[in-house]
């Protein structure tokens, strides 16, 4: 306790402020771009997979063989259930194959994407399942093809829900970046661990946490507002 209290004495705070000014801008930038890139790739993989989960379902618009759907579901559930810390270690060979190294901000994107895309696929699935089945039937009754139903009906009608869920994905991935920072990645997570955990500079740790919380707030409120603005069901 005394050591904890000492970490907030004036000289320590001054030192933390110094770290804040010198290292935080770079750390914040790394965290933001790693989060955004990882989310982007997770959506690129997760969106088609989520669509497949809905359309390929037994009662979907283009049912796929049941065993295939079963395998896809098992893989998604497996990736979702491995703790991120362990998953990071597990995908090191993949990271090396893609990036050339397993250390650094760019390298940390790979495990983030592997962890996040099954999550995004489930989010997309739940967004698309919210859609009124009568709307799908309408599209079929007008002679839509499967692709037309997906791209002209399902996705456009689900935009507000998708934006809300992608916002959830982005904040979750932001949380993961802090973890990957501790395991060779960069960003605010790395600063917090390096100073706060390894060198008992709690003031720096708390500053990093405050910045991360603010970042989540920013992403969340931007996403929420965007979803509301895009939703044409809300009477203005």
């Amino acid at each position: 306790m005394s050591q904890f209290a000492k970490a907030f004495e004036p000289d320590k705070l001054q030192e933390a402020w110094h770290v804040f000014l010198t290292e935080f801008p770079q750390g914040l930038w790394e965290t933001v771009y790693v989060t955004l890139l990882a989310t982007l790739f997770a959506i690129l993989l997760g969106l088609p997979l989520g669509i497949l989960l809905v359309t390929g379902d037994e009662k979907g618009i283009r049912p796929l063989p049941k065993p295939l759907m079963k395998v896809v579901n098992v893989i998604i559930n497996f990736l979702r259930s491995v703790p991120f810390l362990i998953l990071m270690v597990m995908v090191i060979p993949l990271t090396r194959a893609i990036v050339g190294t397993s250390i650094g901000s760019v390298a940390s994107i790979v495990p983030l994407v592997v962890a996040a895309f099954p999550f995004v696929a489930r989010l997309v699935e739940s967004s698309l399942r919210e859609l009124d089945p009568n709307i799908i039937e309408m599209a079929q009754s007008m002679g839509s093809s499967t692709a037309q139903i997906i791209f002209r009906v399902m996705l456009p009608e689900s935009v507000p829900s998708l934006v809300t869920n992608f916002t959830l994905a982005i904040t979750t991935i932001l949380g993961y970046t802090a973890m990957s920072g501790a395991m060779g990645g960069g960003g605010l997570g790395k600063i917090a661990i390096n100073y706060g955990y390894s060198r008992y500079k709690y003031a720096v740790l708390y500053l990093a946490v405050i910045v991360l919380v603010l970042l989540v707030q920013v992403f969340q409120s931007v996403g929420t507002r965007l979803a509301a603005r895009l939703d044409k069901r809300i009477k203005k």
Partner: protein
Amino acid sequence: MIELRNLSKRFVTADGPVDALNNVNLTVNDGDIYGIIGMSGAGKSTLVRCINMLERPTEGSVLLDGRDLGALSKKQMQDVRREVTMIFQSFNLLMQSTCLQNVMFPLKLIHTPRAEAEARARELLETVGLPDKANVYPAQLSGGQQQRVAIARALATKPRVLLCDEATSALDPKTTQSILELIRQINRDTGITVIVITHQMSVVQEICNRVAILENGAVVEEGDVSQVFSRPRAAATRALVFPEMASGEGPVSTGYGQLLRLIFEGSITIDKPLIASMAMDCGIAANILGASTRTVGKREYGYMLIEIPGGPDELARALKYIQNVPDVVVQVEAQYNGREADEA
């Protein structure tokens, strides 16, 4: 012309197979407004979905101008669905698209050039009376307005058949009237064949020229609306036409007379004081148990359920008297209630 031939549809459910449709045979002529009416669960929705193959019939065929729709490829069926379009109980508009985009939707599916599609959509919004709502989103419209947009959308590809699946069931009576009037007007102007699925008698009376009554997946009665409704034969039809008779909450006879059902076929007899003149001329004081008249296709129809007190003598005289009145059909009714219990 649409012909349904020996159409059956069986669903396999957890509780075993369910026969939604049972050997249905119907012919809908070009330009008809054809009503298919039945209680909920009678198979109406399944029937209409078989016409555009949203449901594949288990047996039988659907012929559109002699072409068997069940034999078409998926691509061919998509083309047929631009000739046979549909409107729904819940309107089913794209809520994230403007009214104009909604009406353009079927045209975009067939890659109609944008300018052409937009011109057609604006023209149709004009037809349904909503030219000023082009850039408005459906959430800002009332139910009746949403159904108008849905009708415009259904007409975009210039179909020959319009399927209406309980299209007015979610609307209030006044809005229902205006939507039915719109459908009738479009039928008159374009000669489009309309198939109306409903559980509401009033809808069939309002716009249909022919009607089929569906019960438990089978057609129990079929024909011209005026004929079917003025002289309902099947029990299911009577239940729809005279619900108060079927519900068991109808008039109760005193149990000491014979029940007669008088059916009026034309407005003239309605004006004539039949019961009063029978009392004066024959001295038979009939007891009126129930009566109902309806306007079907601008002609007055109705029925009256009366009880003739006394014995077979009075009954014979009453029958003779009524039979001499033109445009009135009299049926001797089986006893509904009371009588048997009293005699037992």
